[in-house]
């Protein structure tokens, strides 16, 4: 009789142990970042970055680890070779920081496609992003506006969003890849370096 009672209780415990998700971070990592980097003057008080320090992290939406995959949309008749080259070259600008791989079999987490909107100043868009409970991207879309001059640099910028970096708009940040305009003065992310916060699953962490 006792054995019968114990089995369901034990099963419930087992269920919790094996089914409960491992919460890497369900709350802000600012405290963690503060503990880690408070002695580094580069970070000042901006533990998730900001215009003042020239980088900014989106804690709610970023990649998990240093491996990113994408595929080209098979349903987009306008996705010509030139656009694909921009994407491949844009991805390669992050080499040595993260590995962005083109999955030819269509199994990439991200989709690259084009769109056409003449009545907008938008050149590219990072959109359709879904995440798990920890803000880690599970799927996303990068779209290039055919009405504008898209380049491998604008694509590298969009991949920065996949990594988890926010746009910067202050004029002092024109020399950053994440500057929100095509008039940025750099074509790759030379000023950024990986800070390796993957142990917190925050995604790569960058600073000047």
């Amino acid at each position, binding site marked *: 009789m006792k054995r019968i009672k114990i089995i369901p209780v034990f099963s419930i415990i087992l269920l919790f142990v094996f089914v409960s998700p491992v919460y890497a971070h369900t709350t802000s990592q600012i405290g963690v970042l503060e503990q880690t980097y408070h002695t580094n003057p580069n970070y000042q008080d901006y533990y998730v970055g900001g215009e003042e320090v020239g980088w900014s992290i989106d804690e709610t939406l970023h990649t998990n680890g240093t491996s990113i995959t994408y595929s080209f949309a098979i349903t987009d008749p306008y996705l010509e070779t030139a656009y694909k080259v921009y994407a491949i070259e844009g991805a390669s600008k992050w080499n040595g920081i993260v590995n962005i791989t083109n999955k030819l079999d269509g199994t990439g987490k991200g989709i690259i496609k084009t769109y056409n909107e003449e009545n*907008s100043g938008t050149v590219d868009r990072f959109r359709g992003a879904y995440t798990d409970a920890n803000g880690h991207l599970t799927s996303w879309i990068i779209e290039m506006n055919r009405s504008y001059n898209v380049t491998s640099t604008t694509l590298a910028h969009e991949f920065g969003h996949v990594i988890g970096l926010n746009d910067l708009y202050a004029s002092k940040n024109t020399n950053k890849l994440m500057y*929100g305009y095509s008039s940025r003065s750099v074509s790759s992310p030379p000023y950024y370096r990986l800070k390796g916060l993957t142990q917190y699953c925050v995604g790569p962490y960058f600073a000047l």
Partner: protein
Amino acid sequence: MKKYIYTNIVIAILMLLVGCSNENIKAKLPPVRISDIQINASFERSYTFAEAYEESDMVAHIRIGDWLGDGEYITYFEAEIIEQYKGEVINEIVLLQDGTTSETLKGYPLFTNENEMLVFLKHAVNTEYEDAYWIIGAYTTLLDVEIDKNGNQYYIDRYGILGETISTSLNIANNEELKKELYRNAIKRDSIVAEMEYEYNYIYNKTSLDELMEGFKE
């Protein structure tokens, strides 16, 4: 007696019609103003205040009217021209805003009825609307219009992007009392302001920006 009954019936019908008519003039609002999934947009170029004026087909203080619906990538609104600084003189336009009710731009909620702002516009092409205009830099070239308790009008750059290009001597955001008052008024006018992390660090007297724009004409 019959006369009174008929009169009462007529009055009741009239009241019903007035009620229906009021229902008809109720503003059409966008069903969603901040979508769950958002867009990070990268823009072709940045604008200074002078460049935004220079490169626009129309510069105007507008008031948002009805939401007309979503396009594929943009949202359409009716907008009334309150004051016009540049462009073809017109009373009403259709305003195009980047983003739709299913995907809005990050930090850029869809407008709603009675929002007032100073916008720099380009004439839209290939749309179903004749007098359609789009905002050249989306939220990077947009100033909110707000008034204080004395009825003085101000332009506010809630994003601090265009404001960065206007002479600091014109910025009166260091007046903390005024800043708080305008922020409170903005929330009263549109409660979504309270949900956003806007910093009212760029505030200008209407007269000072009017003079600035007057200077651009010369």
